[in-house]
């Protein structure tokens, strides 16, 4: 049973196309990531999977069922952590979990045990009786994840799990998600953080303007689209044209912005020493990352 298969999946609103005929399949026990600029259609895709938004075209199967026909059955096996926290502010931390369990028809006794377990899992045991409004944003996010796990979901959907959190909180959440991965929970994640995608996802799909541009393992995507390494040259005391001439003998792809040039290569050491010899000062050699792939594919212009 595949967690998700989508063929030509489409979502149109009155005058916009949010998701424009995408195909993808999430494998069992896989952590599948969607990355892309704002408005790329990631969240809409998530919402179609968790039965919040009906699709306007194409095929979609979630846990072998069609969300438009059996939403209750699909939702019964999903864990959903949406982008915005929507914890129940009328209830305390513990009751948020047991009440949520009740929506899944989980008997109260079992729900209480499960809630205790999950609070320990996300390190919120001491906050059991605390009001939601008194939690920090990191704690709220962890509680959201705990809530998403209350029904032992077959598929966990996380829409920007660590947005707006400090590094400590992010690392704690990553730890927890890795642990879930080791327990074979299938996951779908959207994120703006490329390090997060690299860290957690087995495969990522880069989306832009409602389309999936590429899908693959982060490492493969980097190798395929960028290479192994990147040399960044600040255009402070030089020009892009001069740099192009100086780097001409090397096997590089060059991309320029107003401030910087990026040179992509398999092994950048010879290039680096050559440029140093030529007197370039503001220069940096580093491994290629998913962010390079992302910016290359979706462009460096601001998307609004």
């Amino acid at each position: 049973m595949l967690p998700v298969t989508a063929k030509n999946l489409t979502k149109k609103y009155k005058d916009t196309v949010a998701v424009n005929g995408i195909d993808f399949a999430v494998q069992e026990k896989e952590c599948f990531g969607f990355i892309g600029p704002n408005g790329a259609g990631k969240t809409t895709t998530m919402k179609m999977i968790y039965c919040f938004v009906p699709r306007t075209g194409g095929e979609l199967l979630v846990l072998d069922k069609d969300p438009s026909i059996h939403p209750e059955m699909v939702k019964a096996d999903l864990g959903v952590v949406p982008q915005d926290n929507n914890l129940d502010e009328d209830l305390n931390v513990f009751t948020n979990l047991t009440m949520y369990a009740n929506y899944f028809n989980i008997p109260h006794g079992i729900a209480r045990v499960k809630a205790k377990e999950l609070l320990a899992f996300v390190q919120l045991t001491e906050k059991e009786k605390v009001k939601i409004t008194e939690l920090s944003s990191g704690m709220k996010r962890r509680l959201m994840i705990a809530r998403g796990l209350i029904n032992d979901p077959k598929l966990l959907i996380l829409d920007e799990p660590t947005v707006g959190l400090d590094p400590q909180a992010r690392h704690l959440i990553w730890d927890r998600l890795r642990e879930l991965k080791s327990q074979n929970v299938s996951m779908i994640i959207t994120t703006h953080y490329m390090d997060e995608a690299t860290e957690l996802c087995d495969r990522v799909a880069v989306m832009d303007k409602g389309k999936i541009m590429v899908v693959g393992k982060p490492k493969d995507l980097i190798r395929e689209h960028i290479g192994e390494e990147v040399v960044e040259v600040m255009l402070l005391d030089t020009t892009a044209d001069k740099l192009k001439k100086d780097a001409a003998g090397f096997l590089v792809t060059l991309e320029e912005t107003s401030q910087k040039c990026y040179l992509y290569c398999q092994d950048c050491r010879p290039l680096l020493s050559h440029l140093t010899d030529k007197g370039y000062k503001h220069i940096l050699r580093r491994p290629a990352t998913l962010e390079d792939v992302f910016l290359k594919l979706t462009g460096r212009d601001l998307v609004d």
Partner: protein
Amino acid sequence: MIKVSQRWIKVWYRNYISFLKFFYVNLVGNLGDPILYLVAMGFGLGAFLGNKIEGMSYVQFLAPGIIVSSAMFAAVYECTFESFLKMIHLRTYDAIIVTPVNIEDVVAGDVVWGATKAMLSGLMMFIVVAAFGLVHSWWSLLIPVLIFLVGFHFASFAMLITAMAPNFDYFSYFLELVITPMFFFCGIFFPLSQFPGWVQGLSGVFPLTHAVELSRALVMGTVPARPVTNILFLIIPSIGLFYWAVWRMKKRMIK
């Protein structure tokens, strides 16, 4: 397609648990106004009225209407401001409808909860009225049924308005243009016969008018003039309003 499942009870239960936390605040909010009306208008204004109204003292005339109107206000408040808050600001609806509980169930749960709050409010008011010695018949044991019907009607109506409301200000129109006129022209404060024919005709279509007539008959142990009309006017629009509200809310939330 509209299908309400028994999962609405989950939503009702959530509201009930949340209500217990704010029990006393809720109580004062619900009872304060009706008691003021009863005391200020009934005893205050009533003292100046030499004539009896339809054979009873003014406070006696007033009390049965205040019972049903307090139910109406409780239902309206619950399913406008409270529901809107849950829908837009707290995103409680969003959180619930990604579980097996669908939006139809959420709306039904909130409406029945609104009717429950109406029942509580109306019953409290009934006890106050009884304590003033203004209840005269065992028929009044049917008051809970009546106020539940009133509650369900106005909760559904309010939920429909909530499904259409872009913001909180929208509720002012509903309250000022629909609920308040209904409150004053449904025969709570003055007999309908005081009004010109067209006002009487208009108030004849207000569900609250029919609730007031029934309430007065039950409290006094008299036979209402048009019981079948009263009951039909309470029940039939309720069913229409309820499904309309569910449909409209689904259209708003799932797009």
